[in-house]
C-alpha cells in the first residue's frame, strides 16, 4: 500500500470507527505535542525555534511509533515570529516548559467594539496594550524581519504537510467551512477576549453584555458557517472528520449558565451537521460527563468526543450514541509499566471498540517529559496496531 492509499485507508478507518462500524483494528490517534521533542533527545528551547530540530523530532516520533493520525507535527507555538516582533511578555519557554500568561484583551463593555472591527481593535487596543511603549517603536526593519520569519513558518507548515502525506497521515478535519476553525461565541470570549477570570465574573455580573455579543456572533459569524455546511452537501472524505471544535468554556459554567450561554448555540451547530449527515469531533478539556443529558439524543455517527478527565467506561454508559476518542491516561503512561499500559489499552479496545465507536488516543495532550515513558508509549502503540478484536 503506498502512502496515498494508506492515507485513504486511515481516513476510512477513523470515519468507520466514529460511525460505530466495527473496524478490523482500532485506529490510534496520537494526542502528542511537545513530548516528542524530549523523546528525540532534545529540549524545548532547541526545538521551538529551529525548524530542522523540530522536523527531526517529528520524524523520530513517526518512525518510532507508527500511528494513524497525529494532532501536531511541530507547527504549534512557533516562537520565531513573535520573537522577531519583540516578545510582549505573553509567554516564556525554557528547556522543559512553555508557559503562556492569561491576558484579557477586552472587558465585557468593549466586546462589541471588538466585534465591530476586530482588526482595528487589535491595532488600536490589543497590540499597544501587549507591547506597551515598544509598540510605537516598531520600525520597518522589525516589521520586515517579522514578515520574513512568518513566511519561513508558513513554508515549514507546508513542508510538514508534505511529510504527513509521505507517512500516509490524514488531516483531522478541514479548517473550513469558513476560513479558520468553527468557534462558538463563548469559547472566543473566554479564551481569546476576556480570559478565565473576567469571563467567570462577567457571567454573573454582566450577563446581558455576554448575551448581546453571542447574539451578534451568531448572526455575523455563525450563520454564514451554517450556510457553508449546508452548501457542502455531505461529508468531506479527505479528512477524518468534517469538523473539529474545542469545548473549554463549559469548565467555568454551572448548568444554568451552560443552558443560557452555550447550549442553544452549540445545539444549533450540531443540528446543522446532523441534518447534513456530517460528523464532528469535539475536543473537551476537563469533564463533560455532567452535561451528558444534552447530547444523548443525537444519532450515532454525528459526535465523537475526545475526552480528558471523564472515565471512558462511564462515558460510554452515559452516552452510548457518542463515539469516544482518548481513554489512554497519561497517569498510566507516565507511572505504569508497559504490561499495565497494554492491559489497560486492551480493556479499552475490547470494551469500547468491539462494535465500533472508539478511537484509541491519549486523554491529555502529551506535552511534558513526565507525561509518558517511551517504553509505555511504544508498548501501547505496538499493541493497538497489532490487536484484532
Amino acid at each position, binding site marked *: 500500500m503506498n502512502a496515498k492509499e494508506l492515507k485513504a485507508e486511515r481516513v476510512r478507518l477513523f470515519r468507520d470507527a466514529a460511525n460505530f462500524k466495527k473496524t478490523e483494528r482500532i485506529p490510534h490517534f496520537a494526542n502528542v505535542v511537545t513530548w516528542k521533542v524530549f523523546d528525540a533527545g532534545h529540549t524545548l528551547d532547541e526545538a521551538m525555534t529551529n525548524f530542522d530540530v523540530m522536523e527531526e523530532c517529528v520524524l523520530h516520533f513517526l518512525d518510532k511509533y507508527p500511528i494513524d493520525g497525529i494532532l501536531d507535527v511541530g507547527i504549534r507555538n512557533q516562537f520565531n515570529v513573535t520573537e522577531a516582533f519583540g516578545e510582549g511578555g505573553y509567554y516564556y519557554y525554557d528547556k522543559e516548559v512553555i508557559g503562556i500568561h492569561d491576558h484579557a484583551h477586552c472587558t465585557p463593555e468593549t466586546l462589541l467594539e471588538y466585534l465591530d472591527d476586530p482588526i482595528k481593535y487589535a491595532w488600536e487596543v490589543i497590540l499597544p496594550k501587549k507591547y506597551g511603549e515598544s509598540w510605537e517603536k516598531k520600525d520597518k526593519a522589525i516589521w520586515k524581519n517579522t514578515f520574513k520569519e512568518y513566511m519561513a513558518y508558513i513554508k515549514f507548515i507546508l513542508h510538514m504537510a508534505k511529510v504527513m502525506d509521505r507517512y500516509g497521515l490524514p488531516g483531522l478535519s478541514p479548517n473550513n467551512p469558513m476560513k479558520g476553525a468553527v468557534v462558538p461565541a463563548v469559547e472566543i470570549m473566554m479564551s481569546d477576549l476576556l480570559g*478565565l477570570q473576567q469571563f467567570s465574573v462577567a457571567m454573573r455580573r454582566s450577563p446581558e453584555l455576554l448575551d448581546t455579543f453571542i447574539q451578534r456572533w451568531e448572526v455575523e459569524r455563525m450563520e454564514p458557517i451554517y450556510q457553508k455546511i449546508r452548501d457542502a452537501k455531505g461529508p468531506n472524505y479527505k479528512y477524518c472528520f468534517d469538523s473539529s471544535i474545542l469545548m473549554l468554556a463549559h469548565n467555568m459554567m*454551572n448548568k444554568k449558565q451552560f443552558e443560557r450561554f452555550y447550549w442553544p448555540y452549540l445545539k444549533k451547530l450540531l443540528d446543522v451537521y446532523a441534518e447534513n449527515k456530517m460528523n464532528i469531533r469535539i475536543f473537551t478539556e476537563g469533564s463533560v460527563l455532567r452535561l451528558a443529558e444534552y447530547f444523548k439524543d443525537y444519532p450515532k455517527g454525528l459526535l465523537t468526543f475526545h475526552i480528558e*478527565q471523564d472515565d471512558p467506561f462511564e462515558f460510554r454508559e452515559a452516552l452510548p450514541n457518542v463515539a469516544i476518542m482518548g481513554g489512554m491516561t497519561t497517569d498510566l503512561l507516565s507511572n505504569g509499566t508497559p504490561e499495565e499500559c497494554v492491559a489497560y489499552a486492551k480493556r479499552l479496545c475490547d470494551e469500547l471498540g468491539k462494535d465500533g465507536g472508539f478511537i484509541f488516543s491519549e486523554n491529555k495532550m502529551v506535552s*511534558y517529559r513526565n507525561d509518558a515513558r517511551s517504553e509505555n508509549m511504544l508498548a501501547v502503540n505496538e499493541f493497538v496496531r497489532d490487536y484484532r478484536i
Partner: protein
Amino acid sequence: MLDFDNLVDVMGDLDEDAMIEILEGVMEDGGSEAEKAMEACQKGMEKVGSLFEEGEYFVGDLIYAGELMTQAVEILTPALVGSESAGPKTKMILCTVKDDLHDIGKNIVRSMLEAAGFDVVDLGIDVAPEKVVEVAKEQNIKIVALSGVLTLALDSMKETVDAIRAAGLDCKIIIGGAPVSPEACAAMGADEWAHSPQKTINVCKEWAAEA
C-alpha cells in the same frame, strides 16, 4: 437590627448587590458588628463550597465567590483592623510550584482559605523549593499548600517536600491540583492531597485545630 443569617444566604447565593448593601449597613455605625458580619461571610463561603461539591456551582462560581469575598474584606477591613478581640489567625503558605504557571485553582483556594480565617502567605506561581523553605523558616509556618496542574509539577512538589523535610521544618504539607493522587502524595511524602478546594480547606482547618 442586622440579619446575619440573611448575609450567610446572600453570600451563599452569590448576590453581590445584596451583600454590599448589608455590609454597608454594618459599617454605618463604624462597624461595631463587623466581626459578626465577617463570620457570616465565611459561613456563606462554606455554603458556596457545599454547593460546588453538590454540582450546583462550578469553577466560574468559585472565582466569582472569591471576588465577592475580596470585596467584603475591603468593606469591613477598617473596622476589623481596629478590633481588639480579633484573635490570631493561622498563617500558612500557598503557592504554585516551580515550572508551573497555573494560578486559577490556587487563587480559588486562597479566597476560600482566607474566608475560612487563614492568614495566607501567597508566594505566587513558579515558586522554587528554596523560597518555600525560606519563608516557612522566617515566618514559623506550620502548614504548606502546594498547587500544580502539569505532570511536571509533581517533580517540583516532591523537590519542595524534600527541601522542607531536609530543612527539618515541622510543617504539614498538602498537595493539590489535577495531577495529584493518593499515590503521588505517598510517593513524595506529603501529608495530604486534594482535588477540590473544599477538601483543602477542611484539611487545613483540622491541622490548624491540632496545632
